[in-house]
């Protein structure tokens, strides 16, 4: 049985926000994060770690994406 999936949201004193998916595999992480991102604002930067691709077939060239 896998570890519990979590979203951790860190709100810094200066108002900057980081949203992180923990123990996800595949695209479920992006969807879970996106709920909060849409309510809070826009992405300044976005990174995907290697385990994101365990559930999919994305190209390695998609490994790090910068958005916003």
């Amino acid at each position, binding site marked *: 049985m896998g570890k*519990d*999936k*979590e*979203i*951790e*949201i*860190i*709100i*810094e*004193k*200066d*108002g*900057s*926000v*980081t*949203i*992180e*998916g*923990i*123990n*996800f*595999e*595949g695209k*479920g*992480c*992006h969807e*879970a*994060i996106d*709920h*909060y*991102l849409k*309510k*809070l*604002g*826009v*992405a*300044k*930067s*976005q*990174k*995907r*770690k290697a*385990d*994101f691709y365990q559930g999919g077939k994305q190209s390695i060239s998609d490994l790090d994406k910068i958005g*916003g």
Partner: protein
Amino acid sequence: MSEYVVCETEFKDQKILIEALAEMGIKAENIEVYDNPQSLVGYHGDARTQKAHVIIRRKHIGSASNDIGFERTEAGTYKAWVSDYDKNTGVGRKIMQGELKHCYSKRVVLNSKIRGHRLKSVVDEKDGRCRIRIGVN
């Protein structure tokens, strides 16, 4: 970990914006809300070029202050209007230094009701950081 996003907070929810202002010490009854934007007033009593939908009048801020306002943009987000003087004092400084965004963001997250998500913990750390953990089914 699979993914993380650094987010630029935008004021999108008027109700939560007002609640966050109240949390910073502005009484709710001193926050004016308009459907149509109204002119902000400067410390000489002059109408400024800036207009806003959510306004804190200068009498509630300080004797040398100008009105502070939030104008709803076409995108539906609220842009803060804070004079150069007020950027360095009182509530204006709190807005510019991110305290309002901090309060707003925390309220947005805690008010989010998403199916399959449950709040696990909220920790306000000594350095001012807030760490919120949400379980996902």
